[in-house]
């Protein structure tokens, strides 16, 4: 059986998160994200002075997104075990892409802002804005993604559920928390701007918790199914 493979895919979730963190913090310097109110001159100086960090970091964002897909596929496989009709599984699969395609587009826009230092200030600022809006603002599909797992878990009515039921409630909680990111375009300052405590940090932490708990639950489900399948 491919349980070992499934275990590897489960680990790709936390590994992807470490890569994401490394790229954002050490390479791109966007953790915390640049203040939206940063003066044009200051903002473009960052892109002109550290283009390599921005570009290589972007590359790692693409890597993280790609390996997340195997992790999401694994979560979907577990969800399918919970459901009689794979409704939430399909919702999860489609919203996974809807939530993460924007990371790849955002990463390319960050790269375009850093690619040519001779670009005008205004243009670099426009690209940077677009990148942050794509990166932080695509929150609702992410919420749908998290909540979908929650509903699948809570709908699992077998005697020995695939995931513990509290994971379902946690997924719904994380999904609700991640949603304020949707509104970042409305603000340039304060806790709901794209660098804000509530839009960015709460959503980021919610995603981190969601991912790690679902990793734990998926890993547990795989290990538990191992003896049954061998027998």
């Amino acid at each position, binding site marked *: 059986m491919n349980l070992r493979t499934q275990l590897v895919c489960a680990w790709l979730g936390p590994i992807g998160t470490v890569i994401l963190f490394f790229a954002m913090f050490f390479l791109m310097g966007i953790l915390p994200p640049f203040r939206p109110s940063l003066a044009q001159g200051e903002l473009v100086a960052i892109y002109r002075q550290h283009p390599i960090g921005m570009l290589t970091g972007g590359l790692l964002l693409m890597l993280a997104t790609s390996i997340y897909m195997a992790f999401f596929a694994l979560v979907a496989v577990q969800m399918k075990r919970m459901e009689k009709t794979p409704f939430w599984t399909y919702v999860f699969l489609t919203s996974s892409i809807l939530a993460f395609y924007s990371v790849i587009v955002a990463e390319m826009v960050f790269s375009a802002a850093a690619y040519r230092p001779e670009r005008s200030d205004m243009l670099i600022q426009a690209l940077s804005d677009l990148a942050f809006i794509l990166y932080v603002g695509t929150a609702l599909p992410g919420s749908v993604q998290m909540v979908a797992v929650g509903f699948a878990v809570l709908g699992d009515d077998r005697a020995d559920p695939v995931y*513990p*039921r*509290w*994971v*379902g*409630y*946690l997924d*719904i*909680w*994380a999904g*609700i*928390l991640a*949603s*304020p990111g949707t*509104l970042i375009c*409305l*603000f340039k*300052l*304060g*806790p*709901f701007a794209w660098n804000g*405590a*509530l839009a960015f940090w*709460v959503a980021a932490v919610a995603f981190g918790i969601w991912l790690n708990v679902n990793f734990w639950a998926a890993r547990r489900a795989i290990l538990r199914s191992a003896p049954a399948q061998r027998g």
Partner: protein
Amino acid sequence: MDAEQQGAVKRRAGHVPGEEGVWVLIMGDMLVFSIFFATYLIYRAQNVVLYTSSQLSMQRGFGLLNTVLLLTSSWFVALAVSEARAGGRERAMRLLLGAFACGIGFVVSKAFEWGGKIQAGITLNSNEFYIFYYMLTGIHLLHVLIGLIVLGYLIARSRRPDPGASYVLVMEGGGAFWHLVDLLWIVLFALLYLVR
């Protein structure tokens, strides 16, 4: 032993209302809202004058009405859970309808409150206080709407000929979520409307 005594014994032994997992959601939400509240006070400390002067435009009457509506709906829900436990599904259903009506009342009064503000030219980005005002009450309103869906489910469940073995558990869990909505509003009301 009658049903009530049985319930009392069970409760004394330490009874988790609803299924245990619900409490991950409830405690998680309480944690996050306390972060919201603290963030509000931290931002407020940078510019107290702006906040207190903006708070003058807050219509406390609305806040009071909202609080009483939510407290009353919570009362209905608590009674309904108690009835459900004693087997009175019909009465539980009617009490839930009362709670639902109060919840709708909350949404309507919020709409009037926001509408009045917007007509007075006070919008989302008018100043930092209003960012908090609209966003925190908005996120809370989202919880109210989710809570209304939960209440609707509980009502439907109570009307079923056979409510299923998990009926009381679902009532307790859904009820606890509605009380959470109430509980968060109590602090939000104090912070945004009353604390200067």
